């Protein structure tokens, strides 16, 4: 598949790295970056502060409180006989667990998966991509393997990988990382290939710079901008894929509150109690939207030439 992923961001490599201050100013002036970044920061904050946001134990099963509609007030009897009234803002699920608490705690898993997948696949892809782009003998083999991996639709590959072992957070992260790596490798390689031909790199070679030095000083900084943009999009897609895996029942174990799991739980009674699917779905969509908008904004501000085109 040629011309398959002419990543638009790859063109960035040709631009010299702008001064730090300029980039930061551009980024904060970009409305998309501000908007997406703010929402993402809020979700991260919610994930961190989950225990103090009026939540109860997200795993506590209370058979008496099964299937309460959003806003229902339910009172429970404490050990000393007194009653406590609790409002279930988002209702309860078919095991009587508080959906609000589960949704809030679910943010933790999504953020964790998004961040780790973005980080791991970028680092792995960066290393392989730089090597493939720089060492010609490695290039052919590595790129054929990457082409092959990319021909397996990402969700299918992830599903196949989680089917291997009992799924847990680590397996799921790994299963999402593997299909993402080839995309980073291609991007990094294309950047490296174009930089190799730059006069200043030739000059550095002529001055006797060694390959590792060359890679660190000249090649890596140039891959940074497109990689940051790519990592943002990977983060968004990782959050989505994790939710899909959980939703299909092949992801993180069902007792862990994740947005996908809450929705999977709500499937059976969806016609009568749609809140189990709607609330986590809303959070999921909003978060992914924020990350995607952030990515768009970063791409625009890191490479103004692309703004009009995509």
């Amino acid at each position, binding site marked *: *598949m*040629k*011309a*398959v*992923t002419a990543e638009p961001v790859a063109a960035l490599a040709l631009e010299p790295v702008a001064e730090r201050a300029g980039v930061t100013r551009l980024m904060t002036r970009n409305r998309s970056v501000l908007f997406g970044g703010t929402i993402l920061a809020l979700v991260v904050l919610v994930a961190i502060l989950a225990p103090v946001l009026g939540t109860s134990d997200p795993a506590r099963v209370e058979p008496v409180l099964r299937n309460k509609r959003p806003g229902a007030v339910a009172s429970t009897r404490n050990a000393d006989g007194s009653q406590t009234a609790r409002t279930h803002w988002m209702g309860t699920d078919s095991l009587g667990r508080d959906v609000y608490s589960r949704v809030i705690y679910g943010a933790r898993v999504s953020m964790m998966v998004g961040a780790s997948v973005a980080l791991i696949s970028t680092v792995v892809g960066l290393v392989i991509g730089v090597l493939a782009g720089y060492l010609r003998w490695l290039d052919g083999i590595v790129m*054929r*393997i990457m*082409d*092959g*991996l990319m*021909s*397996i*639709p*990402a*969700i*299918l*590959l992830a*599903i*196949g*990988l*989680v*089917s*291997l*072992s009992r799924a847990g957070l680590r397996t799921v992260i790994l299963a999402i990382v593997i299909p993402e790596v080839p995309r980073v490798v291609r991007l990094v390689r294309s950047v490296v290939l174009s930089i190799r031909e730059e006069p200043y790199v030739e000059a550095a070679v002529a001055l006797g710079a060694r390959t590792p030095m060359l890679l660190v000083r000249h090649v890596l900084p140039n891959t940074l901008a497109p990689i940051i943009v790519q990592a943002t999009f990977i983060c*968004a897609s990782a959050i*989505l894929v994790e*939710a*899909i895996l959980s*939703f*299909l*029942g*092949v992801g993180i174990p069902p007792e862990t509150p994740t947005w996908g799991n809450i*929705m999977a739980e709500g499937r059976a009674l*969806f*016609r009568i109690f*749609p809140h189990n*699917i*709607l609330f986590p*779905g*809303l959070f*999921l*969509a909003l978060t*992914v*939207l924020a*990350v*995607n*908008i952030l990515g*768009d904004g970063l791409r625009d501000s890191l490479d103004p030439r692309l703004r*009009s*085109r*995509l």
Partner: protein
Amino acid sequence: MLPYIGRRLLATIPVMAVVAVVVFMLLRLTTGDPAAIIAGDNATSQDVAAIRTKLGLDRPIAQQFVIWIGNVLRGDLGESFFFKKQVSQLIVERMEPTLALATCTLLLAVAMAVPLGVLAAWRRGTWIDRAVMGLSVLGFSVPVFVIGYLLIYLVAIQLGWLPVQGYQRLAEGFGGFIERLILPSITLAIIYVALIARITRASVLEVLNADHVRTARAKGLGDASVLLRHVLRNAAVPIVTVIGLGVALLIGGVVVTESVYAIPGLGRLTVDAVLARDYPTVQAVILLFSVAYVLINLLVDLSYTLLDPRIRY
């Protein structure tokens, strides 16, 4: 042209080989003994040994791969542990719903996305453009199953216009067949529309600035004629490319959509097989989908010569 097709076909061989190795390794990478997992919790050690011999797991891994690939090339995908029949037969049975869903989605997506993209490019910078682009980001971000349940809730449950879930074979009547395909196709089409509309807009924008478009305008052609005959034709290659690449999204989406709408197709089969740890079926379906994806993109590559006579091989 012919030598090009030959070379292009040859180039897919290494890709297919990598796919085959990865799919084969899926089972072999299992932590623990695959034979024991397949045999289940109540199996005796004799049972496990019998399964190991039957699957050839006692042989060296390279030999196993050769046997497996040989069988696959002869159309023998093995026997499903869970459904207790030939995997190839299982796949044939589940093919129709998936093909119907994919075709419907593809038609719907292209019919919606291309006009939207052209409109956005043509009215660049206006609220129409911003609305189309905004919706496209939204389409990328809202998960397939959330869209699916929203549509079921609004259209099928609240309004009662369409059936909630299920599938009806084409042979049992066209009305019921298409009625049950509308919601799943819309659900699945949304992310695809987002993708195609974006690329259509970008590539139309590029062509709109070309000299020949200005000439066409100057000689007094109307907007419709300029857009259709001079712009869209020249913008076709990237659009068709992205339609081909988007098939990967489509396949991923099929798995989810079929689960949401209880459609007994290949996607549902994949999930059922994974949940039942039915490895031969999982392998076969992943292999099949990947081969389909590679072949579709091969066709896309070959279609460039038809779309753009300047491209010669």
